[in-house]
């Protein structure tokens, strides 16, 4: 037990330090890391609360609050799977310290369990952020008063603790499959990208049809519950939270048993699995033909592209914002009649600034440049040794993000402008202001990557999902968007032109400041790493 606790401490500490990036040295960095985690918690709670209250307002009058917990439980399960399945490959099976720890006198089951505990903690956070707000909403909106019973909170707590066990078991199984495919299939990255693409397409479909689904729910809530018999554990969880202890215990058992089976089953073959997933033998059939040459800059950009498309975790986490941006633009164009009708209902709503805000939100989630320096990690010596100036390297890393964000912004901006029927000058302003934001975002990303490098990460997952640079590279631009919205509102008190000019001036100033700092101090910061 002592050994297991020591191993678990290492896994959890490694996960926490990967977020705060402090390595226990800088209180300032640790504090800002904790601040970012709190911000994520707030955003998670806010979004979950919003969806819970939307569902509850429709279902509570029909006394079908149970459906809220079924859907939020499914959301937590799907969200957890999305966040952790690909992390399993790196954290559980591909840790750089596997050789060290496997050589120690500890059982492979204990080692596997300690690794899985880090995944469980991540799923626990998702479960807490999703089911917690649903509970709060239930306490305020339910008509039966069940949410105000202290035992309701005990039952909810049991569900919050149990659900991540099921999530973790499934994540580990799917993660093992991903690790196996990566090791055995030559185009493993392509396969993973296709799986993630299909998953996201389903999420987009669900999101775009959410309103229709909720309206349908209100009309036939009981029928919907009946039709969800295939998701029996979720039904048991929801009924359990609402008061059925027997079903709650059945749900808990449904989570504990698969978790135990996966942990102890895979634990017994952990050493074998780690070996199999790592063992990719080089082929010996390559025949050298005439090679072609290209320039330095093209070579560096191609290297960035190989990394971006070759590491699915990087591609999906960092490119998700752009996918959403283009999907939103195309969807707006396809559903322009509904969109215009909806905007017509909300009379006086400023369509162009709102579109710019939403596009900016998507661009904020495009964190390609921010993790780029940290992803160099152990390979940084290659670039340092190369006859390329630091300024050029940083310019290329920033340019690589712009290579994707500029065309996506132009496409989405044009689609949205057409869909909303904006006058030409407004359409041009929409594209121009979002391009300005994209440029500032890329420069800020590279700068923040230099300021908060994570060069010793055990794998790319840690850098892309949990590093400080990625979190700040996402949320600081979102905060800048908030500031723009505030300036728009303040300017609107004077006149419409000022309302549009103030955010644009702020964005231009922020972009210029980021670009200037990057150009002036960036090379020295890179040299000092």
């Amino acid at each position: 037990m002592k050994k297991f606790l020591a191993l678990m401490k290492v896994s959890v500490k490694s996960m926490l330090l990967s977020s705060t990036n402090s390595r226990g040295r800088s209180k300032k960095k640790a504090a800002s890391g904790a601040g970012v985690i709190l911000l994520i918690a707030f955003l998670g709670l806010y979004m979950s609360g919003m969806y819970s209250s939307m569902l509850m307002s429709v279902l509570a009058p029909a006394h079908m609050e149970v459906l809220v917990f079924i859907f939020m439980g499914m959301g937590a399960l799907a969200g957890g799977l999305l966040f952790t399945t690909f992390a399993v490959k790196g954290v559980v099976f591909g840790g750089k310290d596997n050789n060290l720890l496997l050589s120690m006198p500890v059982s492979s089951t204990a080692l596997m369990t300690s690794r899985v505990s880090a995944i469980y903690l991540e799923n626990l956070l998702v479960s807490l952020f999703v089911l917690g707000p649903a509970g709060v909403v239930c306490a305020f909106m339910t008509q039966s008063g069940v949410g105000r019973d202290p035992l309701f909170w005990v039952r909810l707590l049991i569900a919050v603790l149990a659900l991540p066990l099921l999530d973790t078991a499934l994540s580990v199984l799917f993660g093992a499959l991903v690790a196996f495919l990566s090791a055995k299939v030559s185009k493993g990255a392509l396969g993973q990208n296709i799986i993630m693409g299909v998953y996201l397409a389903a999420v987009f479909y669900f999101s775009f049809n959410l309103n229709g689904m909720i309206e349908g729910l209100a009309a036939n809530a009981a029928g919907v519950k009946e039709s969800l018999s295939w998701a029996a554990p979720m039904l048991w969880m929801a009924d359990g939270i609402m008061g059925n202890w027997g079903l709650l215990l059945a749900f808990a058992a449904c989570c504990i048993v698969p978790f135990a089976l996966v942990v102890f089953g895979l634990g017994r073959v952990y050493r074998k699995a780690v070996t199999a997933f790592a063992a990719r033998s080089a082929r010996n059939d390559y025949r050298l033909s005439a090679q072609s040459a290209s320039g330095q800059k093209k070579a560096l950009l191609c290297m960035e592209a190989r990394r971006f498309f070759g590491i699915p975790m990087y591609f999906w986490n960092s490119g998700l914002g752009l996918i959403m941006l283009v999907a939103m633009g195309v969807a707006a164009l396809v559903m322009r009649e509904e969109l215009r009708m909806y905007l017509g209902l909300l009379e006086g709503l400023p369509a162009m600034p709102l579109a710019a805000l939403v596009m900016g939100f998507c661009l904020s989630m495009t964190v390609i440049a921010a993790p780029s320096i940290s992803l160099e990690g152990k390979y940084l010596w290659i670039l340092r040794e190369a006859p390329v100036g630091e300024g050029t390297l940083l310019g290329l890393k920033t340019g690589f993000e712009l290579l994707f964000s500029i065309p996506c912004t132009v496409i989405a901006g044009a689609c949205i402008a057409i869909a909303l029927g904006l006058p030409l000058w407004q359409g041009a302003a929409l594209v121009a202001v979002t391009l300005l934001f994209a440029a500032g975002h890329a420069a800020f990303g590279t700068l923040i990557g230099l300021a908060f490098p994570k060069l010793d990460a055990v794998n790319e997952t840690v850098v892309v999902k949990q590093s400080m640079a990625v979190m700040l590279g996402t949320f600081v631009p979102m905060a800048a968007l908030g500031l723009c919205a505030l300036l728009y509102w303040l300017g609107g008190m004077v006149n419409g032109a000022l309302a549009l000019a103030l955010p644009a001036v702020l964005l231009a100033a922020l972009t210029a400041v980021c670009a200037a700092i990057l150009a002036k101090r960036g090379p020295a910061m890179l040299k000092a790493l």
Partner: protein
Amino acid sequence: MLRIEHYSKTYPGGKKAVDDLTLHVRPGEIYGFIGHNGAGKTTTLRACAGVMDFTEGTITIDGHDVKKDPVGAKRVTAFLPDNPDLYEFMKGIDYLNFIADLYDIPADQRTKDIGRFGDAFELTGSLGSPIGSYSHGMRQKLALISAFIRHPRLLILDEPFVGLDPSASHIMKGYLAELCRGGSAVFFSTHVLEVAEKLCHQIAIIKDGRLVKCGPTEALVGDSSLEDVFLELEGEK
């Protein structure tokens, strides 16, 4: 070829890794750099390669000041760290082309050299596989090929024999000699004193960041062996 003048490196916290080191490597020389663990060998090699910044002294390579003209210095240098981590998401051939592009090596020359060095190190057949599937020795060989195809004026190697099989070590020694016959120079660190004694024209011994002895191998070793000289200087004999 390589001139290190009064070079010092102090780490944050005040620990002096290297103190007032002056050392010259002439064209055509293989220069061995030996010392115990933590003596300052790697710190010096990394500073010469432009991988690590330093505050005191000057380092020039083929007339290029590493601080004032880093790109010019790097253009004529190839550096191999003790454990060369190479992009695992690339295939071996892609990595070699990437390096060749960074050094503006023409297409026909790179094709010829990749074939020549790849065949010599028995790696050509594996160049189509991802580097992630390579063994430690194969990565070491690939890193060596990427250095040789540059035809550097100065080759800096940190513990180059670690991980290489005897046959690859032998081939590497042959190419080092060939490089020096062409007027280039090699500056490398090693703990394998027998190899250093046989291979190097000049040897420098560093202890606690300070140069304790340097000179032509024959003069330094005399009638004794390099191992005896080294242990004596280290106060272990």
